[in-house]
């Protein structure tokens, strides 16, 4: 994994608060699905591309991210145009393009921490009534980051040991020992987290570690 998709910058889109960008993106998406006119979709796609260009992204990087989805969109556009209606196909293709590009532009200009803050704020009513815990969400996000390099390293170690014994590449022989290994370490990690009294008990900063079952 190569960092995040966010790029540093000072474009107008960078300066808008994350919450407003996300709300605008939702409204944009809803509006696009409420309409079926290809001219409106074309305008929306043009606006999205303009926004993307305004972020100052390296075009090569944008191409890397968008080529795959665009191939699928082109495929769908052709299918809808041929099988249903040419103008509807055009509207479908432009709508998906607009959504993909606008979403990408927001992602490019919003740091992960700001996005996480918005999501925590969205969950805060549920947090208050005890349905979800922001601390647990934050803990699991950071655990994923910790596990990915462990998985990759361990896969390499197992693969090298097997190659040294003359074993062919085999997905089963790789994944079974890999998953057993990380499951064993999961228990140690859970014990270590509990020993540090994390995540904090609901709504408290008192450092008591009693609410862990």
């Amino acid at each position, binding site marked *: *994994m190569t960092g995040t998709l966010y790029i540093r910058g000072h474009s107008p889109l960078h300066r808008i608060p994350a919450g407003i960008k996300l709300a605008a993106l939702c409204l944009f998406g809803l509006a696009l699905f409420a309409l079926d006119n290809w001219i409106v979709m074309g305008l929306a796609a043009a606006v999205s591309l303009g926004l993307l260009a305004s972020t100052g992204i390296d075009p090569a990087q944008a191409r890397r991210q968008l080529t795959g989805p665009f191939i699928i969109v082109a495929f769908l556009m052709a299918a809808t145009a041929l099988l249903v209606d040419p103008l509807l196909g055009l509207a479908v293709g432009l709508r998906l393009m607009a959504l993909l590009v606008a979403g990408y532009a927001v992602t490019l200009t919003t740091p992960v921490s700001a996005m996480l803050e918005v999501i925590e704020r969205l969950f805060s009513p549920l947090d208050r009534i005890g349905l979800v815990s922001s601390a647990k*969400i934050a803990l699991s996000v950071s655990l994923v980051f910790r596990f990915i390099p462990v998985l990759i390293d361990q896969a390499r170690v197992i693969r090298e040991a097997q190659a040294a014994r003359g074993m062919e590449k085999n997905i089963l022989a790789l994944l079974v020992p890999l998953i057993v290994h990380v499951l064993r370490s*999961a228990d140690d990690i859970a014990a270590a987290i509990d020993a540090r009294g994390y995540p904090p008990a609901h709504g408290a900063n008192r450092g008591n570690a009693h609410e862990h079952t």
Partner: protein
Amino acid sequence: MNTRDIVLIALFAAITVALGLAPRIPVAFLPVPITLQSLGPMLAGAMIGPVRGALAHVLVVLLVALGLPVLAGGSGGLGMLAGPTAGFIFGWIIAAFVTGLLCRTWTVSGKARPSKWADVGLTFIACVIGGIVVLYACGALWLAFVAGLGLAKAVSGVAVFIPGDLVKAAFAALIAHNVRRAYPIELK
């Protein structure tokens, strides 16, 4: 939801992400390469159970939304959650849940402990129903909606990927069986 549950959820989210990093297999006539990533929901459901498996994939969706390149080929971001394949990404949550539910009903809480091949076979069927039937239903419904294609055409469009996913379901069943034997975990 104790700490061990959170660690297992994060671990299986990380496994789905790591499977997306594995080399992709390009297929000549398909517009998208086949990836190992859809193995993730099957494995999570079959190994940690319906609720934790589903939550692991809620976490993956959250990581995509945060703008992390966690999908196959290093893609991610909000655009992917509204794009043509969004139904499959959200569908992972339901796929893991159904796979886990079936595995728990059939293989673990069954009266007699199933023999080796019965366990592999039942896990395989659970993976096919959860990780293929349910997942493709989600993917095709979204595709039919965004492309205005109608459900039948959308289903036939995604059906070309089913043979590859049947192979993945077989791998998932074998992996889950062998891991369960070495390290049994209660499915929940």
